[in-house]
């Protein structure tokens, strides 16, 4: 019984696929419109992914300065350096002694004379800590800072590059933007498919009427239209995927050249499998939903007389 049911569904889905294939031009046009609408947010999502990949590569962008208490001996400071160096979330630790700090300050600030007038060194010793690349996101960085603040030797812990945080915040906003855009264009896809199915229902008015006359259930009449919506959505998704990949391939060369000017080996990669899966599933479901709404609204208006 179930087998027959599944077989029927396969038959109907192939039949509605056949209908679409027999009108290649109009099918292609509808799918292309859907594809363009879907390609826009997909492309932006991929671009954001790339931006985040670049920003992830900015190792050392976020360094943490750990100022030691005045009474920490140089020996203890070195031991601490080694201890921190061994931690898995830290890539590099540089120890700057009080003397070294004073020397650096003397050279860079131009207050040499004034410092000479002091009889003791007012500067604390300092550890400059670079988190590992994997742990450089805002949350992990904050966790590391909290951890460092717990150390008995620590006087003050400071995150240097605030703008990394700002960059992350910006990409987050951009991500929201892409989400909003995707929702709006998803709605557009819904309307496109709904309208296409509405026209299809009008074209097959006689067939629907006669089918009802001889005892077709609503589910039976609905089915081919739902499958048509599904196919439109799927085709649109495939077209969107092709368009985004084509754009990436077109842009890859110039982007590579630009990157090489900055001594970076950065290059574009085509849409990943996860994005493709989400795109195709989403577009098919949108197609199904669009035709479902359309069929629900327009099929009941056709009654035999």
């Amino acid at each position: 019984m179930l087998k027959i049911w599944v077989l029927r569904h396969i038959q109907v889905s192939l039949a509605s696929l056949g209908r679409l294939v027999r009108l290649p031009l109009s099918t292609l046009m509808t799918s292309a419109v859907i594809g363009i609408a879907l390609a826009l947010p997909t492309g932006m999502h991929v671009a954001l992914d790339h931006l985040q990949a670049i920003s992830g590569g900015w190792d050392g962008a976020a360094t943490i300065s750990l100022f030691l208490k005045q009474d920490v001996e140089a020996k203890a400071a070195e031991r601490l350096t080694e201890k921190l160096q061994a931690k898995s979330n830290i890539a590099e630790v540089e120890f700057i002694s009080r003397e070294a700090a004073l020397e650096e300050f003397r050279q860079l600030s131009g207050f040499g004379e004034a410092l000479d007038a002091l009889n003791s060194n007012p500067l604390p010793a300092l550890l400059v800590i670079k988190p590992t690349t994997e742990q450089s996101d805002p949350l992990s960085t904050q966790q590391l800072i909290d951890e460092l603040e717990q150390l008995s030797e620590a006087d003050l812990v400071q995150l240097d590059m605030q703008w990394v945080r700002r960059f992350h915040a910006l990409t987050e906003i951009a991500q929201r933007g892409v989400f909003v855009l995707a929702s709006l264009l998803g709605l557009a896809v819904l309307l496109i498919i709904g309208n296409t199915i509405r026209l299809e229902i009008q074209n097959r008015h006689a067939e629907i009427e006669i089918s009802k006359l001889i005892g077709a259930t609503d589910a039976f009449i609905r089915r081919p239209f739902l499958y048509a919506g599904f196919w439109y959505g799927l085709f649109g998704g495939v077209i969107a995927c092709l368009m985004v990949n084509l754009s990436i391939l077109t842009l890859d060369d110039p982007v590579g050249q630009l990157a090489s000017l900055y001594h970076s080996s950065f290059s574009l990669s085509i849409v990943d499998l996860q994005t493709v899966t989400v795109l195709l599933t989403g577009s098919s479901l949108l197609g199904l939903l669009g035709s479902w709404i359309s069929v629900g609204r327009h099929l009941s208006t056709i009654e035999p007389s």
Partner: protein
Amino acid sequence: MINFDNVSKRYPGGHDGLSNVSFHIKPAEMVFLTGHSGAGKSTLLKLIGLLERATRGQVLVGGRNLTQLPNRKIPYHRREVGMIFQDHRLLNDRTVFDNVALPLVVAGMGHKEVGRRVRAALDKVGLLNKEKSAPITLSGGEQQRVGIARAVVSKPPLVLADEPTGNLDPALSKEIMTLFENFNQVGVTLLIATHDIELISRMNRRILTLDKGQLSHDGLKHTW
């Protein structure tokens, strides 16, 4: 098989299609329905096929009370009532075979059984050699026979026909009526609406006559 009990049908706008009609048709009867244009013949048939619902009274078909039948059960009711129309109502973008197969496909019948039954039905109406033709390439009489094959292919116990010979010459009309008599002989109940008094008066069957929506006569002879 069919039971009308004080049935009235008022169309939206206040026009009465039928008023207070009562009659009973037994299984395996062959009954003609006649009356002037606008008398309510089509309306009566539509109530039986649930293309319209009665405003008052009760319609029973095959023991089923149509007044209380919910909309979602209408398709299953229609599968047990074969309907034939003056304008055939065939799908012109499908072959004769596909047109006749439609009721079986709609009911979910398997492929092989469909082929067997469709050919049997086409054979009965003498169109077996036309199964691959498009309906518009056939003559009016042939198209009507395709419509008849479609109505009987699923072997419904009841067949309704609304002016099935309306556009046909007397010889073809006679042929169609002979077909109906054949179906009746194997136990199918038939209700046939027609203007063609001459034709039915020679057939010696029960005749229901409608006049302005009311049943004016019920018997072997017509009265208008």
